């Protein structure tokens, strides 16, 4: 299946290579560089590139291309999904997945890659199993290792691979037993020029951080499970139980994991938390344009809208923008023409606005497109769909765990067309 893997940084250097079968020359990456050159944007490099003898399947994460070389038919998603899993694992191990982090931990990276694939076929991709095999580096352990010469490789044999619950390592012990669940919902929306919603949907996830001793068996039930239209589960969730009773029943992995991601049915009207009043005009003949933007809270159920960040790609003809924000700060990059305005918290009494003028290239005709405005925001302690966790119960262990649940709403791909 997967023959080799090349890691390529933004400047086009191959800084890591790993082969699972016979060695494939790194010159195969030339085809990739060719495709990269052809693409206008980094993310426009086609994920699958055929070459005379191989196929290159790549993903771009954290400005690093992970290029897998394969030789014969394989479902492309299989490879893509695996590469993303690799990135997730690196992130899990090193905190960040940057070139520097990978280079610093090249041995751990190699050990990980060795365990994750056998002859190109995924072997151990569960983070719990991997952590049993190869301990993630911490500052303390690195120091101890350099002094004592001990290792990152787990001393015990990885029994997790044999377990019926492969995602959970055995013999977990904590003094504080705690289970936290974050319900995070993102609103994806397109708002048209006049302010009416073209499409809006809610995508949510429940991320969990479970640190419980032994083999706890948890059940999580919702007040209004009918809201969930389409769900995908971590493998630990018992599917039948969900089908029958709409209860999540599972033996959790140890540590952080994504329990569930869901989609709220489109029948429900989505509350749009902010509105945007905008007036962006370019006049024919003049080298000036007007920019006027005001934000206001809409349906927030009494919660405040925080961490608002507005960004917009201005037309190429714009040379500079001379704007005046009523709150927060703005930046305009004259090279990429990207305008970002860090608004912060919206105060309903005094609505934030950004006003001013844009200077256009002299002599150039007026741009015929108007920029779209992308908005990021956060609302704490509320799930915009109204989803509520009813209760969390634990079976199988005797202690009483500390349970916590947090709700948050974020803007996902939230766009306003102007």
């Amino acid at each position, binding site marked *: 299946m997967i023959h080799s893997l090349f890691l390529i940084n933004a400047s086009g250097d191959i800084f890591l290579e790993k082969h699972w079968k016979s060695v494939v020359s790194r010159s195969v990456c030339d085809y990739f560089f060719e495709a990269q050159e052809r693409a206008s944007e980094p993310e426009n490099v086609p994920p699958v590139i055929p070459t005379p003898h191989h196929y290159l399947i790549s993903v771009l994460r954290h400005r690093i291309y992970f290029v897998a070389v394969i030789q014969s038919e394989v479902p492309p998603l*299989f490879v893509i999904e695996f590469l*993303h899993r690799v990135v997730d694992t690196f992130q899990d191990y090193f905190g960040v997945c940057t070139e520097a982090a990978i280079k610093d931990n090249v041995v751990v990276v190699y050990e990980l890659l060795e365990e994750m694939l056998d002859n190109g076929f995924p072997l151990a991709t569960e983070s719990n199993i991997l952590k049993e095999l190869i301990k993630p580096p911490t500052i303390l352990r690195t120091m101890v290792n350099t002094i004592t*010469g001990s290792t990152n*490789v787990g001393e015990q044999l*990885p029994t997790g691979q*044999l377990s019926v*619950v492969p995602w959970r390592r055995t013999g977990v012990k904590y003094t504080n037993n705690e289970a936290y669940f974050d319900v995070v919902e993102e609103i994806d929306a397109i708002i048209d020029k006049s302010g009416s919603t073209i499409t809006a949907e809610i995508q949510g996830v429940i991320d969990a951080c479970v640190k419980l001793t032994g083999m706890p068996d948890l059940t999580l039930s919702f007040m209004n499970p009918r809201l969930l239209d389409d769900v995908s589960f971590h493998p630990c969730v018992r599917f039948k139980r969900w089908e029958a009773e709409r209860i999540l029943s599972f033996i959790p992995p140890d540590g952080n994991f994504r329990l569930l*991601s869901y989609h709220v049915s489109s029948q429900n009207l989505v509350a749009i938390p902010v509105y945007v009043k905008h007036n962006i005009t370019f006049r024919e003949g003049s080298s000036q344009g007007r920019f006027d933007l005001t934000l206001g809270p809409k349906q927030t159920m009494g919660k405040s809208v925080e961490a608002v960040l507005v960004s917009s*790609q201005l037309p190429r003809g714009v040379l500079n923008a001379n704007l005046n924000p009523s709150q927060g700060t703005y930046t305009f990059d004259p090279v990429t023409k990207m305008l970002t305005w860090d608004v912060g918290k919206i105060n309903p009494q005094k609505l934030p606005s950004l006003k001013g003028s844009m200077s256009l290239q002299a002599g150039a005709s007026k741009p*015929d497109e108007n920029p779209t405005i992308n908005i990021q925001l956060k609302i704490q302690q509320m799930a915009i769909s109204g989803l509520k966790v009813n209760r969390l119960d634990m079976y199988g262990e005797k202690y009483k765990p500390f349970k916590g649940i947090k709700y948050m709403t974020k803007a996902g791909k939230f766009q306003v067309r102007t």
Partner: protein
Amino acid sequence: MTAMQRLLQLPVTAVNMVKTVQSQVQGQEEDKSPVLTPDGVHQAWYSALQPDELRHLRSGGTGGGGRGGGGGGDHEEHSSLEEGGGGGGGSIFQSQPLRHDDLKEMLDSNKDSLKLEAMKRIVAMIARGKNASDLFPAVVKNVACKNIEVKKLVYVYLVRYAEEQQDLALLSISTFQRGLKDPNQLIRASALRVLSSIRVTIIVPIMMLAIKEAASDMSPYVRKTAAHAIPKLYSLDPEQKDQLIEVIEKLLADKTTLVAGSVVMAFEEVCPERIELIHKNYRKLCNLLIDVEEWGQVVIINMLTRYARTQFLNPNMNESLLEEGSDKTFYGSDEDEDEEEEEKEKKAEAPMAKRKPYVMDPDHRLLLRNTKPLLQSRNAAVVMAVAQLYFHLAPKAEIGVIAKALVRLLRSHSEVQYVVLQNVATMSIKRRGMFEPYLKSFYIRSTDPTQIKILKLEVLTNLANETNISTILREFQTYIKSMDKDFVAATIQAIGRCATNIGEVRDTCLNGLVQLLSNRDELVVAESVVVIKKLLQMQPEKHSDIIKHMAKLTDNIQVPMARASILWLIGEYCEHVPKIAPDVLRKMAKSFTNEEDIVKLQIINLAAKLYLTNSKQTKLLTQYVLNLAKYDQNYDIRDRARFIRQLIVPTEKSGALSKYAKKLFLALKPAPVLESPFKDRDHFQLGSLSHLLNAKAGGYQELPDWPEAAPDPSVRNVEVKDSVPEWTKCSSREKRKEKKVEKPFYSDSEGESGPTESADSESDSASGSESGSGLEESGSGSESEESEEGSESEEEEEEEKDKKKKKKELKKPVQESESEQSSEEEVRKHERKNKQRKSDSESESDEEEESESESSQSESEDSESEAEVKKKKKVAEPKPPSKPVKKECKKEKKEMSLLDLDDFEPAPSPQATPLNTFLSSSLVNDLEGLSLSDAVLSPATISPSSTLKSYELLHRITGEGLSVEYCFSRQPFPPDGNMVAVQMQFTNNATSDAKNLHMEDVKLQSGMRVKEFTEIELLPAGETATAVMGIDFCDSTQAANFQLCTHTRKFFVSIQPPVGELMRPVFLTENEFKKEQGQLMGMNEISEKLTLDANCRNEHSIVQRVITAANLSRVPCGSDKECRFAGRTVTSSSLVLATVASREEGAAQLTVNCEKMVIGTMLVKDILLALTQ
């Protein structure tokens, strides 16, 4: 082989020797050596390995050259090559680059930390793509290093460079061979993993041997590794294919989820064409699927898609004949069926009766049902695999379910989106309705990468129809304003396609496009002109006004491509604009010299066409234009002018061609077809690389067409002979299978035909006797499936109860709706089971009502497949099973199917059976009743109850008057099937009452569990009382220690079981016994010769003594010289078989076969003792 083995045992000095030689020739040639040539000569060469010869051979074989393309600009490599080359053949030490000397020193040192540091640096070199091959000898020596991390890094190095240094790599092989024999399964597995990763042809036989051995390893993890090793060996030496297929066949029969994914992957790589190997494992794979790890799921689903295409009939084959409504009911899968449609169906029945009605094969249904939950997987590849399976295999009405899941994937990373959208684009051409509800999910955001935008546009275009076209066009209008010009161009093309597909909006689109002609962007204008041109070509008559409009635009539009297109249009349709055309030509002639080349060419074209149609008005103009062109700078234009002049102006010299000038120029050009690039891509299996590239990738397996007639479905019936050894959970499953064999047809098709409602379900009724016998069988058939399901997927007891309730509600309507179909199926299984239970034990009155009303349903079910019944009866004549066997089997079955629901409990070991928990005491009573009847039915079984041996737990003196005895009652322990029941008898010999007898402070070995007896509150003086406790000994004879407490005192006591009590009897037939015994040979068999005790020479007493010693049951046997006994261990359900073969003069041989060797050994001792004393 022998030579090689000798080599592998080379002493360490040989390593050093070879190392020296190696370093000497370093650099002359890197990776090629004559050893590599796969002609078999090397073996002889190795047997006579001499350093001198080696040097000779290596320097002689210059076939190779350096490592090709290892990395441009790699200074380190170059320097090492140069230095090596300089010293080539000369002195030994100069050839090494200094840099690596320190590494070598570190590797040779005694300190692990130094070695580790060196290895880390070497691995970092490998990671950067630098050549570290010259360190090979130094590294390989450390393969046996104690430090795990050093070892692992050495493996990494070894696997990377073994291919280049084959001879040296061989020196490490013995380490792995030793590892293959390690008692720890993980070490065995990792040894096999590394061994098989070393790509050295010479070890192929060793690998083959190792794989074969590992394929029958006890540990499923090792077997999984064996499956992984198969493709490795295959790629190394394709000659081994036949042998490897044998191994694959064996592993395919494996019943563990761990192995399933890996072996199917090996199957796909080695022998995808041997689809017949899947037959016997098909159902098992379907049932295991949900518990296989996600990567394996992808591979299995893709393989099963192909399999299903060869084995089942096209569920949509009658599609064209039926109208939509009846179509749906016909498949019994409509979401909201109402009575009207049922009426319709009846009407539709008449014409259909003539055709052979389509009945979905139950196995086909099984596949669809078992893959459906996987749409909820978090892994996009799994979701995609299920989606393509549904697309290729499901009846039309059921495909809809995948749309939601695919749309969900659009939230994922952009690469995932890219692949999913490609597939959605293909699907949406064939099944547009499926994605229509999700239209808005394909709306484009300005932040999407261009390639995603274009794919979304493709999907939107495919989804456009009369009802949604207006919204789509409004969206398109926004897109046209985008800054991304490639995307705008694609949008214009999309508008063009919408306009061609949907007649109503053609004019609107045209007008919109015409407006775009005034766009500043050249690309936009050109694209719109091109699209307009295509649209106009379809109906030129109707749009002469647009052509006129475009003619006017020539004054304003400066984009040459657009001008050229307009001129072409006017020329092509000059008849429709007879007045304007010459005028345009006049203007153009005026500006000819200032035009771009491409426009000039079109002006010449226009002139020629006009000359041919309207020579009166345009003769002079044409002459003028041609003359201008004659002196143009561009030779293309000069050529064209000359050519056209010859063609259209008749002169004497011009040949016959000019006669045809009009035909040449004014031929009717076919309208370009605007169709999706994704059309007909679905002949590639969706989700595959080939589909994505729209070209066949290497190793792609064609998706076969549906067969005309279904191949024999009975090939999938599992026969008992094929079952694998007893590693896995299959205590009583074997028996069920055997039963299937007895009546292959009934158990198969009737048992599972539930889900498919055929159209003629209500036609004629089945004959009474037929359905009677059929019913029982159908029960057993479906049950076997159910219990498998039960053990694989976790089901709660409550759930089942719920379903039972639900079933009552659902009983009446024969035709169920699709949404409830799946649950209904399960319900039905329960019903059957209930009924069966009833037939077993007549005492259950509460179930009566249910089963009665249910029988009508299954009767109709019966009739459904009656056509099939008749057909297949010829194939397999059912023979009634023998009564006693059947009853026994049923009892067994019930234990399994009802009880092992709690699969999610972490089992003590992976090969352990699911817990056999008893659910209700009433059931236990039933079972006990059954076991009594067993004794009657099979007289050979002797009830051991009279011969129970008691042991002393507490002596009355130490117990201060309280004495306690215990015995192993050999009864099932109701609260927990894994526990051994211990019956305790308390006798109070003291003068005072003992109070509050209970136990405390239980000390157990790990894994063991105890169920305490209920407290005895009062035991008056001189009285006795009994209590029962349960102990799960975990199949060991470790004692359970606890304190026995009275109200005043505590006594430390312990219960240690004789090994014979750690098992429970099972019933086997003679054949089964032999078969099982055959599988427990080798280490699992222990034989002992003995001389029987004088009182124990007849059969009866032997049986009596054996059964006293161990809780086994007698296996009927033809010969009276041999007594056979069978049982299973209580906790892990490992089979225990004992045979006593008596000979002359009291000589006898005792054989015990048991997977657990320790138990076997102890049991032999115990039985030996029992028989000789």
